[in-house]
């Protein structure tokens, strides 16, 4: 471990971060381990296995596991990705990186010379950036194009 960072500081910072983390479903080891289960008597185990209602039972209890065995529900559909606004700063940084690549720069310069129509040029630039894998920069060009054709 880096000697400059004391252990207590790491633990303290992590604890703060851990508090911020919240997941209330009993799915995954992290959630299951969250409520530290106590050791229970054999009779409690039997009682919890017979009990089928997990309401109020901790994630790590046998009742909760049995509840999963008896009734689980799954969402039977697919979600479309949420729409995310374009982060202009990220996109500009991404474009700057793309422009530092000589091959891409050469292709874009060639476009400038060969395509006088700005709208068409923006469209073709977006296509080049997509091809090269600079997606944020591509989105920036698409946004600029949309503004031009409004």
């Amino acid at each position, binding site marked *: *471990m*880096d000697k400059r*960072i004391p*252990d207590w*500081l*790491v*633990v303290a*910072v*992590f604890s*703060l*971060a*851990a508090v*911020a*983390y*919240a*997941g209330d479903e*009993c*799915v*995954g*080891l*992290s959630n*299951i*381990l969250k409520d*530290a*289960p106590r*050791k*229970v008597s*054999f009779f409690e*185990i*039997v009682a919890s*296995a017979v009990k089928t209602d997990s309401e109020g039972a901790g*994630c*790590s209890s*046998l009742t*909760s*596991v*049995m509840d*999963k*065995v008896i009734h*689980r529900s*799954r*969402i039977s559909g697919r979600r479309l*990705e*949420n729409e*995310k606004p374009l982060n202009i700063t*990220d996109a500009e*940084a*991404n474009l700057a*990186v*793309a422009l*530092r*690549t000589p*091959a*891409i720069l050469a292709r874009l310069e060639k476009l400038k010379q060969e395509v006088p129509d700005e709208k068409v040029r923006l469209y073709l630039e977006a296509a080049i950036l997509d*091809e*090269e*894998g*600079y*997606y*944020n920069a591509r989105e920036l060009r698409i946004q600029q194009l949309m503004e031009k054709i409004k």
Partner: protein
Amino acid sequence: MAALVFIIHQQFHWLDAVDGYAFLGIGHEGFVERLNKPKRVVAVLIDQAAHESRYREQSPLSRCQLHRDLKRLYAAKPSLVAIDIDISPANWLVGRSAPAVSASRAGWRCPPAESVVDNEADCEEKLYCMIKDEKDTTTVIMKPFDVSPSAAELKRLKEAWMTRMKLPNVRFGIADVPVRYGLVIKQYSKGSDWFAAQVRHPTAGSRGEKDDDKEFQYIDPRGYAEIDPIPLSTLDSLTDEVATAHIEKRLNDAFRAAGTRVAFFGGAYGQGDLYLTPIGEVYGVEVQAAAYLSKGLGQYHWLDLLIDIVIAVIFGVVIAVCWHFYFTMRTGNIAWKRQVAPLVIVLLVVCVVIIALLALWISLQLLARYGIWSSPIPIAIGMLIDSFVSGSIEKAVDTIRRHEVLVERLLNSDLADVHQILKNDSIGFFEPKNFGESFRHMVYGGVARLKYKEKFFAASLLAAWTLVWFAAISYAAFLTLH
């Protein structure tokens, strides 16, 4: 009856579903018992929150983000990193990396660390280069998912990548887990190409492809308690340096307990890679970590048989006594006894429950304390059938036979002897007085009595039945011990 249930179970696995669910409940307690023990392996997880924030819910996962997160993990100096994510080259990234990097698909030409950012193709290459360059850390990567036969080009691309990644510090593992009746309680154990086996053993081997080559081993549910999960979302607010220090501290703790610094890395989000295990629903990477920690469970079939015999003998007496009293009271002349007789059945039900709980308790103790799996299900089902079917029929037949013998004797006797016969109605009908007599009667006494009465054909049939019964028991013992 327990022997027959056991034989059928061993041969046809007809109780596997029930057995699996029994293991779920019993295994859970094994997990709880182990919770306070030190953690032995670290699992860095892309949890739901991290998937939504750091990875922006993208599918496939962002190579750039994967590179950043794995970089933090490698910086914590693990001795082994097990990546349970298919990081093989993506088809859509082919030809999209910067020209200087593109050539590296044929060989190694790693992108400069700082020159390219946020380009998925370059990040993919940076990821592979980082794995290659982390020579002090062994990396186990899950074998890529199969591609459809029509995607021959993609298949070639992945094969070429696997060939390129054949490095001294890189191994591939097949991350399949057997799901049986909706549960994951076992892992494949034959061969060493499996993911957990590759993490455990440094030597690779070949795995048979035929289904009958696949053998299973229980995943010790106590292993789940020894995994230290680190959700990536908990590191969101930390700088790279602090996050790495945190992972390093957790690896150090695991090292003190296990003597190794092993870290699993995988996805713990969504519902696609979620499995029902004895501890609840957990993600594939967590199953793999538990499988790695598991040495399997002891399965001493002779112990199962011994427990079954002891319980069967104790319970056999209880069944016989209960049904004897029931039929005696039910067919007797005393009115109140006839009405009270059903209570004997209630008593038998209580005894069945108590002995089933005893079998359950024994299984729990064996698993939680000694890591031995002994299923209480075959004996419980055998007991149920014995209690309410074969046991009652046997006693009912005995009662009817006793009455018939009595009537026969009364018809064949003088009037003067009637009083004496009625006072002692068991004359002419054998009833064992104790366990030893009962055992002797069962083994050879019944045959001897019939032979003595010169009923040779009946004696032969009874001897044949006795032989069949002993053969069943012996076969159960044979199956148990082999």
